[in-house]
């Protein structure tokens, strides 16, 4: 994070015209892949991410099965064409780490103990990356879990806050992430009030950190509303389909 580029203009606006505490445009859709047990799609700014859930199902290889709960697995993966410079398809160290932290962000929300000896597999595919993909990936994966009918204690929703040109901002884009002073991705369970993913790079005083954490949580709460709408839209669509069937 070098901070050489000017990221906040004279009107206090960001490179993409947003106010410091403003989210990027977000679009979500639930239930879009026919093979998966659950699936969802998110666009947040220019980031475009798909998630699918398979399970609860038999565990392969079998010796990984847990006697008292489901095995939750998560794979965060980027398409070779999702970034400026083509990415090799083999998982990078970054992708392996993010798979782990996203899994751990979702795990506290899922009633794993209801499905012993099975696996629940979450696949997140980043089709285009423009910053904040671990957060958007967490948000969309939670939708896919819900779409798969997996019983959950709460939804999980994620959003980053950070610091650019000395200003605390919400939902960093790629440029702000790379050139800013700090990035703080947070996953939140809005009804339980718990933080299930927390990372930080950069430099923040404890005071700044407190504010940034609150800002991120506020962002999560806003995105949570959109999550619920996306789920509702799916059920309305199903209802309409059923009614059309019954009428015909």
């Amino acid at each position, binding site marked *: 994070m070098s901070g050489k580029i000017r990221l906040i203009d004279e009107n206090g606006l960001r490179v993409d015209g947003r106010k410091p505490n403003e989210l990027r445009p977000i679009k979500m859709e639930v239930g879009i892949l026919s*093979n998966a047990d659950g699936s969802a799609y998110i666009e947040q700014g220019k980031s475009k991410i*798909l998630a699918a859930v398979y399970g609860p199902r038999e565990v392969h290889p079998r010796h990984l099965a847990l006697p008292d709960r489901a095995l939750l697995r998560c794979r965060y993966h980027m398409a*070779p064409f999702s970034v400026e410079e083509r990415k090799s398809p083999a998982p990078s160290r970054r992708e392996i780490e993010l798979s782990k932290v996203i899994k751990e962000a979702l795990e506290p929300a899922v009633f794993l103990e209801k499905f012993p000896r099975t696996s629940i597999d979450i696949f997140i595919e980043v089709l285009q990356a423009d910053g904040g993909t671990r957060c958007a990936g967490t948000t969309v994966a939670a939708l896919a879990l819900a779409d798969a009918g997996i019983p959950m204690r709460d939804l999980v929703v994620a959003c980053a806050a950070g610091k650019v040109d000395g200003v605390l901002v919400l939902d960093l884009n790629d440029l702000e992430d790379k050139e800013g002073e700090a990035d703080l991705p947070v996953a939140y369970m809005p009804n339980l009030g718990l933080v299930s993913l927390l990372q930080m790079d950069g430099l923040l005083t404890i005071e700044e950190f407190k504010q940034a954490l609150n800002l991120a949580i506020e962002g999560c709460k806003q995105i949570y509303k959109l999550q619920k709408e996306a789920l509702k839209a799916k059920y309305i669509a199903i209802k309409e389909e059923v009614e059309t069937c019954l009428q015909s």
Partner: protein
Amino acid sequence: MSSIMISRIRQKQISQMIASGKRLDGRGLTDYRPIKIETGIIEKAEGSARVLMGRTEVVVGVKVELGEPFPDRPNEGVLTVNSEFVPLASPEFEAGPPSEESIELARVIDRGIRESQAIELEKLCLIPGKKVYVIFIDIYVLNHDGNLIDASALASLAALINTKIPVYVVENGEIKKTSEYMPLPMRNYPIAITFANISDKLVIDPWLEEEEIMNARLTITFDKDGRICAIQKGGQGALTPQQIIEAAYIAREKAEELRMLVVKN
């Protein structure tokens, strides 16, 4: 490719219908499922396309970089086709190194593009023997409901047509990027048509359940002039020479139809 279990009864039903010239989903033997093509969906890629063929969904991204030419083709750009069967797309797909099916798919698409000389690779050389454009075609299967080859070939072609490459100038042996972009130079438009052999009939564009029970698969790729540029037989069965020749004539017609979906004018 897949071992999704479908019941014996349903298997019988599908093959008996085909024997009598019909298909379970109402299509005729040589009908494609509804096809939907979108391009330019990945702004960070130099070219991209999404193809829906029934419920089969494929995204292709084209990335363009600079690199070295092959020693035996010093004056030509380099083409690389890669495919990934990500586990999101099917319970049968696993993470890890590419499966033989995935490699076969990429190689069949590659041959169609390469042998029809679709891309004018000789226009993609900046400094002979040293610097050329490298074109990466990455095929990403998002939902597998059969006939990945045709969907991938169509998406690849649509993505190539959609591709804009940055213009470079060479000054005193130094390469400089300009702010301009130009379309990828193309001279041909290959289309792959795939048949499944079921009940001794060839049906076009098999969906997943048909692939489960097919005895053999035959893909014939045609260039814009109606010439064959690639063939691939797959599956554990065999075909008569007559079946193959018949398939070629049908495929040539179908290829014309499909090409019109991506090539305007």
